């Protein structure tokens, strides 16, 4: 069901990474089974360090040893704990993949991995970017893959995660992202949210793509195009119904993601549509299967056309 939201046009920024960390530390205080694990990111003189000192067995720092970090989290989950382990995305989803695959997915343990600097937002180049984890987690049984679009949704996701029995990989950007949602809303893992209705074209976006897609939709509205925007915050399990519905209602779909276009949201949408046999036109916006240059997203997003104007331009071309 399409729930309607006014989206935040103020461009108000909020730190997704900080929000997540803070929320988990709140949980640590309230819930004795919640664990927070960092990987040499504890810092000093901050709230994480204070918690690290206060809870020596529940707020941990594995150091620069991500394999140990992930398996250790699994070890705590074996004893009924729910660990949230956070560091740069590639060091969880790529470096520690054997641990994710075996100790989390195959053992089916409710560990939550929070990969920061998702997509090309790191600014630190391909070793610190992760344009591959949608594809990776999609192929691993038992995994759930989430990419919230703003700091508030991170809180919603964290609450929802407490009841989710399986391992979750959550990807967030670097931090300081514009807010998408202004009003409260119901959040459910695996249920896409229609943030803007429309009848000509649907933008199916995830993570940072949602805000940019809303900007594009607004621009396109000025041209008289009615553009729906779906926040596909859950990449796996994918919301097939929402995709099929988009195909049926608008017939034209553009996917928007800060991820390799091979194996990412766009590919998953294609997969769902082909399997369902619902005809639709599809265009994917994302990273064109290459290692991107160095630079921050402000500079890089326009290069790959997933800032608002870039998405709008692609949409105009697609709908000609």
């Amino acid at each position, binding site marked *: 069901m399409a729930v309607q939201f006014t989206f935040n046009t103020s461009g108000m920024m909020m730190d997704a990474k900080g929000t997540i960390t803070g929320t988990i530390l709140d949980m640590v205080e309230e819930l004795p089974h919640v*664990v927070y694990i960092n990987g040499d990111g504890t810092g000093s003189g901050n709230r994480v360090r204070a918690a690290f000192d206060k809870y020596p067995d529940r707020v941990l720092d594995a150091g620069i*040893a991500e394999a140990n970090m992930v*398996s*250790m989290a*699994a070890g*705590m989950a*074996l*004893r009924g704990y729910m660990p949230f382990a956070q560091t740069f995305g590639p060091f969880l989803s790529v470096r520690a993949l054997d641990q994710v695959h075996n100790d989390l997915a195959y053992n089916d343990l409710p560990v939550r991995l929070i990969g920061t600097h998702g997509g090309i937002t790191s600014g630190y180049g391909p070793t610190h970017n992760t344009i591959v984890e949608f594809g990776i987690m999609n192929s691993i049984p038992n995994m759930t893959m989430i990419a919230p679009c703003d700091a508030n949704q991170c809180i919603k996701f964290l609450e929802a995660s407490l009841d989710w029995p399986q391992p979750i990989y959550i990807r967030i950007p670097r931090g300081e992202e514009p807010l998408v949602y202004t009003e409260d809303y119901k959040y459910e893992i695996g249920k896409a949210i229609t943030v803007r209705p429309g009848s000509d074209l649907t933008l199916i976006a995830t993570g940072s793509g949602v805000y940019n897609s809303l900007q594009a939709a607004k621009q396109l509205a000025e041209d008289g195009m009615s553009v729906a925007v779906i926040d596909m915050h859950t990449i796996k399990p994918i919301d097939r119904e929402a995709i099929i519905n988009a195909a049926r209602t608008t017939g034209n779909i553009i996917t928007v993601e800060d991820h390799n276009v091979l194996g990412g949201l766009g590919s998953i949408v294609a997969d769902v549509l082909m399997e369902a046999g619902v005809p639709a036109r599809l265009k994917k916006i994302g990273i064109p299967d290459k290692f991107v240059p160095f630079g921050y997203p402000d500079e890089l997003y326009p290069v790959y056309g997933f800032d608002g104007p870039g998405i709008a331009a692609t949409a105009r071309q697609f709908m000609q």
Partner: protein
Amino acid sequence: MTTTQGANADPVVDDGSTVVRINSVPELIEKAGFIRKQLALGTHRIGGVHIGGPLSATDMAVALYYKHLGFDPANLDDPYRNTFILSKGHNGILLYTIFCDLGLYDWDELLDTYNTVEGNTFGAHPNRLHVKGIEVSTGSLGHGLSLACGVAHANRDKQIPARVYVMLGDGEMEEGSNWEAIMYAASKKLDGIVAIVDFNHFSASFAAGENIVWPNMAETFRSFGWDAIEVDGTDMQAIDEVLSSLPPVDYANPGKPIAIISSTTKGQGIDYMEAAPGAWHIGGLSKEKLEETYEIIDAYTARKLAEV
């Protein structure tokens, strides 16, 4: 639940638990002989089973499961239990064999359905979701110590003074992930952890020192801040002494995590396997060979009994 541990059983508890505790070293040696014969039987009935590693780890596993772990088949989820993690997961058959002996499973179930889709209980690597008594599914080497760090944190968070025993292979120690866990465990004084390296002097391809060289594994553990004990892993008396001598887990006065480097030979107890450990990393036995092998094991067990 009653256990079928045979004549050697000495249930010492009266709290309704079914913990088996064999206190006598000769009886532990006999039990090890029995387990080896059952492993041989499995190698015959199943074929294509990891056998060299299970045989070298048998004495240590028997000392643990029949005495030091306090393993309770009727209370597998006891939060106060000691944990055993088989990091070298390809030795799953060793645990299944012990579990059958302890009454958790029937022998025929193990021997008829091992590694079949139909049974889907006893895989070539142990799966915690399929096999009662398995703490964690393993198979990819180099995970057990990290998992143990998590369990040890959990125990300490709950102030449960339990041990976490991790069984590793000498070849397995080549995985870097182990060393991450080793430096972490020492740094955090996770002294409930006991790493047992079944140093059987063979990986899947190489005799110890033929490819990767360990100058002195105990020293290496110590250099990371662990205590390390070297023991003859074929001497039940020595094993029992080492396991008995471990200091208690005392969170108020934390010590160091402990490594036990248990020196053995791949295929331990079956001479022709010891002589060709590479060929017997995985193997199968014909009916005739099985009979011969039983005799070899009996003779080996008798020799070991004569030594105590």
